[in-house]
């Protein structure tokens, strides 16, 4: 055996030193794992808190109180012109018919009694009666049982938000009205049912008839515009930059700018949309077309970056193979690179779309926050979108809007989860191995 030489540690010494260092290493690993678990627990706790708070407030938003009334559909009264035209029905006294039925049900008498009773029924009731007549004219002249929404104050009272212990002048609902409600409840005419207004109604100042249909369709239209613009443009840009563009200073600058653009606050894109499309080109405000264009600008960097990553992940050997048999550059890309990169591109696009779906700020800038009752029929009709609708509802004072807001948030979340599920499905479906 030779003398221990400098720089060479004998095996016995080495193993004892390794063992000595083990405890510290294991402790370090344990600490790291514990930290990780704590972090996950905290994140989960917040997630649970979020869902509990949204669902406890939101689920009641899907329901509301209705009253069932025996309505005498007097032909003369509801349809004075007798032609069932919309004009004639509006000239008719639908409100009077419903109120008569309500007075009978509640037994309201006298001027003040009738006035108090009249306030208990939603302003949307007459419209509902007119629609029912148009849908089924055979109701004319009959007495039919119909369900009408209660006014939001009555609704809040039934939910227990308004206490009868509070002095009468301090509450939004007076003693007489409480008496009527109790009577209707005794007669079992009041029911707590799924709120069709939430799903099929559009924006309204009256919370009991406000719904998300307009905003939902606005969202769909806006996203459609966004997708149609952003996806082809983003994918084409990514392909050009990855496969065709020479690698030089200019493309480097473009690349850096695209990456920076992804981090630009979304409201900036809104200001850009306002300045360019509305001020310079003089396009109308509040339309899904401009909303979609602005959101497309916002999602473009996301799509480009994820598409480039997907293209880069395609092994170069596939390109070599295609070029080797004489495929042109474009054929190589369209036949081989694009199909292989597509799952990644689509995932990125759907993530971008999900981002766009939840975006509020840039749309406020271009006026999609306007109060629009009509449901948009196309991309050039004024409209709003779900997150903006939520934003607006959250601003309203009526108690019922709290529930409606949370219900709309649930719908938005559902929409988002659906989109992400589609992204995962597409990725798993198209993913291929090489």
């Amino acid at each position, binding site marked *: 055996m030779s003398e221990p030489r400098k720089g060479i540690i004998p095996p016995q010494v080495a193993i004892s030193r390794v063992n000595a260092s083990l405890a510290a290493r294991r402790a370090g690993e344990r600490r790291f794992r514990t930290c990780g678990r704590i972090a996950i627990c905290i994140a989960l706790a917040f997630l649970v808190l979020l869902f509990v708070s949204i669902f406890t407030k939101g689920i009641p938003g899907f329901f509301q109180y209705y009253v069932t009334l025996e309505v005498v559909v007097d032909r003369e009264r509801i349809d004075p012109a007798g032609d069932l035209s919309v004009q004639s029905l509006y000239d008719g006294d639908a409100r009077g018919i419903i109120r008569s039925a309500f007075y009978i049900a509640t037994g309201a008498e006298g001027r003040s009694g009738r006035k108090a009773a009249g306030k208990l029924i939603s302003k949307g009731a007459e419209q509902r009666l007119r629609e029912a007549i148009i849908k089924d004219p055979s109701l004319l002249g009959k007495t039919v049982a119909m369900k009408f929404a209660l006014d939001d104050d009555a609704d809040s009272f039934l939910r227990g938000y308004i206490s009868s212990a509070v002095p009468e002048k301090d509450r939004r609902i007076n003693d007489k009205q409480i008496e009527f409600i109790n009577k209707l409840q005794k007669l079992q005419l009041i029911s707590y049912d799924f709120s069709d207004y939430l799903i099929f109604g559009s924006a309204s100042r009256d919370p009991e008839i406000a719904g998300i249909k307009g905003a939902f369709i606005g969202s769909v239209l806006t996203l459609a515009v966004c997708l149609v613009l952003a996806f082809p443009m983003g994918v084409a840009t990514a392909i050009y930059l990855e496969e065709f563009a020479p690698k030089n200073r200019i493309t480097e600058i473009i690349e850096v700018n695209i990456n920076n653009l992804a981090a630009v606050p979304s409201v900036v894109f809104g200001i850009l949309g306002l300045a360019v499309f509305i001020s310079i080109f003089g396009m109308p405000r509040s339309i899904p077309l401009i909303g979609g264009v602005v959101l497309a600008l916002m999602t473009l960097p996301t799509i480009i970056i994820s598409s480039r990553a997907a293209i880069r992940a395609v092994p170069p050997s*596939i390109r070599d*193979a295609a070029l*080797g*048999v*004489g495929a042109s550059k474009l054929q190589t890309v369209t036949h081989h690179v694009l199909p292989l990169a597509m799952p990644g591109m689509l995932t990125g696009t759907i993530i971008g779309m999900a981002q766009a779906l939840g975006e509020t700020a840039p749309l406020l800038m271009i006026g999609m926050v306007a109060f629009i009752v009509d449901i948009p029929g196309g991309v050039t009709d004024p409209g709003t979108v779900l997150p903006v609708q939520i934003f607006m509802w959250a601003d309203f004072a009526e108690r019922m809007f709290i529930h409606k807001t949370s219900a709309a948030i649930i719908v938005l979340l559902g929409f988002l989860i659906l989109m992400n599920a589609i992204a995962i499905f597409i990725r798993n479906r198209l993913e*291929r191995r090489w």
Partner: protein
Amino acid sequence: MEVSKLPSHTVGDVYVDMPRMTTRKVNVFYGDKMALDDVTLDIAEKQVTSLIGPSGCGKSTFLRCLNRMNDTIDNCRVEGQIKLDDQNIYDPHIDVVPLRARVGMVFQKPNPFPKSIFDNVAYGPRIHGLANNKNELDGIVEASLRRAGLWEEVADRLYQSGTGLSGGQQQRLCIARAIAVSPEVILMDEPCSALDPIATARIEELIFELREEFTIVIVTHSMQQAARVSNRTAYFHLGRLVEVGETSTIFTNPRHELTNSYITGRFG
């Protein structure tokens, strides 16, 4: 190990009587770095020319010049003259698509497309419009797979993925894909380096058969392989073509010191 001097010019017969491809004074640069220095070599018709040499000697670079696959490398610059049948392939007017249809390539790692076996072989004929109808295409696919010695093994699963085959089968599929477009020259870049000895033997047999019909240039790290399959051997060293000649001569009686050192295993 004594360091022998690189020769100032190539030793041996760089010229042949009936060349299919000729290269004259080819220099290749990657950026500022010179990868090939003054390579002049004839590729003989319907023969196997093997390119050997230590790693980084430029043999793959030279091979990739022959069908301009180097074009895909951004900073690669080629000087000199490379002709296929008296046509300069680096002429600016030359389209690389027909060039690569005439000069096919098989790569180091088997790289079938993630498509069916049929589609892999049919890809070339389809993009070049070689078949007028489905029948003709079926014929081309079958004939190519037969010539690549793969037909018996895959005839009953033509529509299964090509990536599901074994490594050796994948490489033969790539050869079938290359010959499906009826090239005149086939370039093979270390086609057996990722394969086991049995699959390697199978490919070597195939190369032996294919040289009846095709002009083949093969890069290999295995001197036994070069000795077994090729007619002519070219030895590259540090970007220079050191020696070229009949395979039997090169391996039995090398004229240059570097060649001798390499084939006797003193380095590389």
